[in-house]
């Protein structure tokens, strides 16, 4: 097979997902040798404006500049792979979407009420262009990423996780932190693939892989956490860290707003 031409790009994010690829130290050189790398700004000064078989894109669309770049990338690649939560759903920076206006954010952080960056409300790539594959996580998992890549090199599309973190939590025989320690674990509504890292450390899942789309029962999760004594505002903040742009979680914000008749951030 001819070596696929690839590019690795980043929009607005922390660089952690590209870094996870570089963290595949044991196989990195082997892995890269399967590809003809045309653009990888983080590690290479070599650049060629050719068509691409695969573009890996990290980061959210948070500025008009990001959007321009994304559209250029989409136009030149056959397969677009969104890597990481930012690229899938806007990431952590989308946490206050729909709650705090961009200008308000400008004011709070930079002290000016003017959008000098051309900022857009952070969203994932699929809000704007067709995405062929999404590899979730904040950051992505090395193992899953490698397996997705080998599957693609093999000519297939990888199988994707469609079940919650709880499944892996039990496959690893971890005691449930929600039941045992009353911690606000989001595992039941979050996509598996991390091997239940957080419960494995005795910590609650904070949802870094995003919800199971069109499936997560966020309303039931809310009820469970309320019954554990957490207040609504905290639960919403927690769910919004990584999931603010998802319908299921937006709904929760709505339910709570209606219930309490207030919203701190309005």
């Amino acid at each position, binding site marked *: 097979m001819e070596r696929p031409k690839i590019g690795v790009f980043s929009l*607005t994010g922390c*660089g952690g997902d590209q870094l996870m690829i570089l963290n595949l130290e044991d196989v990195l050189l082997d892995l890269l040798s399967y590809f003809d790398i045309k653009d990888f700004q*983080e*590690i290479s*000064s*070599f650049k060629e404006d050719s068509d691409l078989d695969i573009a890996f894109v990290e980061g959210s669309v948070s500025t008009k500049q990001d959007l321009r770049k994304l559209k250029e990338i989409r136009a030149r690649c056959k397969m677009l792979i969104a890597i990481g939560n930012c690229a899938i759903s806007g990431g952590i*920076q989308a946490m206050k979407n729909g709650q705090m206006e961009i200008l308000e*954010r400008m004011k709070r*952080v930079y002290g000016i009420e003017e959008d000098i960056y051309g900022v857009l409300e952070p969203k994932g790539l699929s809000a704007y262009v067709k995405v062929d594959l999404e590899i979730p996580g*904040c950051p992505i998992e090395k193992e899953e990423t490698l397996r997705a890549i080998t599957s693609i090199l093999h000519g297939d599309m990888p199988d994707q996780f469609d079940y919650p973190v709880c499944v892996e939590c039990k496959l690893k025989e971890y005691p449930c932190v929600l039941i045992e320690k009353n911690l606000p674990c989001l595992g039941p509504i979050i996509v598996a693939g991390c091997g239940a890292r957080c419960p494995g450390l005795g910590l609650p899942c904070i949802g870094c892989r995003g919800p199971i789309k069109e499936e997560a029962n966020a309303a039931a999760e809310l009820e469970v956490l309320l019954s554990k004594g957490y207040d609504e505002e905290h639960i919403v903040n927690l769910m919004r860290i990584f999931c603010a742009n998802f319908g299921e979680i937006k709904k929760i914000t709505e339910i709570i707003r209606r219930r309490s008749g207030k919203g701190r951030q309005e």
Partner: protein
Amino acid sequence: MNRERRIEIAEITRVEGHGRVEVIIEGNRIRDVKMAIFEGPRFFEALVEGVRYDIVPDIMRRICGICTASHSLASIRAIEKAFNIIPTKQTELLRDLLIHGEVIESHALHLFMLALPDYLGFPDVIRMARKHPEMVKAALMLKKAGNLVHNIVSGREVHGMNDMIGGFSKVPNEEELLKIRKAMEESKRTAQLAVDLFVRAGTPKFVESENILMALDPGEKFGYIGDYVTISTGDYYPVEEYEKLTNEKSVDYSHARLSTYRGSPFMVGALSRLLLNGKKLSGTARELFKEQKDLLTHRNSLMNNLAQSIEIVHCVERCIEDIDALLSTGLVDEVVEIEPRARRGVGAVEAPRGVLYHDYTFDEDGRVVKANVITPTAQNMANIEKDLRIATQRLINQPDEKIKRVLEQIVRAYDPCISCSVHLMRIKS
């Protein structure tokens, strides 16, 4: 009238994040030097407003993928100070281990994979690996050793979650620590190799100029955690007064707000740390520091690369030392009671690229009222521009391509982490 000459690096490569450099020359005079950032802002300080303290580190560590543990620790320390939580000895050792591991990972990535190709004449490490496979493999193993610390102590390579307010959720066990220790023993040679490489790389002099240096005072031993800032001017401040040091001010040659100290740009990072705190080094790193004293001058910021390489040697030895100290007393699970207070706390650590401050104010329920983060790259930016200006001036008669190469090399030497420069106010023109 003189013709205007424009030198532009559209996108700086082999750095974390997106930036570009633009120099405008009129005749023999440099009219403008700009390092523009076109990283989208993420407004972290606004994100945590109203958020309860216990998930603040989870949010804030995501400012940066490379120095994630630094952000994590700065954030945790700020909160602990606000709530008067005193970490245990074991926690301090584990944190020390964690941040040293992070420095190894970050420096190894920067030196071998991003900076070295410049010196050996390759566009990237992939091509460099074809010529020097053994060296690149060794470098990757060094980087992996650093990541192993992340993995075991914080839970994963990037955005680990195990380090939290008050300590660690799951304390690593003996077996795991011995695994790190072994990896460190095996990395010693590669660490020294880095020093050799950068000593041999020579000392380009095109940025020579006075630099003000700034670093945290690590206490007795060389390290990355501290509560006071020491400055090459002889000044000394508690971190709570960081605003005096990082004054974000407009300067005449730039339309951005840049960090200056008493009106002058300053430098943070490995070189500053070594020159200010080098006396506190021990072991091989101390020897190497002495040997290379002449090369390591505060007048040449490119020496930051060499300084980083010596730091790797230090970190590798220190990780072993920390592990031995931890194992000698045995590891125990610790539970810390946290009681939120309506207070302010400032936490600082030396991230791989320099001093990092997190500053939070809480209400009585422990919700963030106000937050501020100052990253090292943001602090360095004024100094980078100063260096770019000086270098351009010296090379003004050289062709554009040559100037570009040098400018990019200078930027890279600072190992800038643009995505975490959340505070940089720069408009892409």
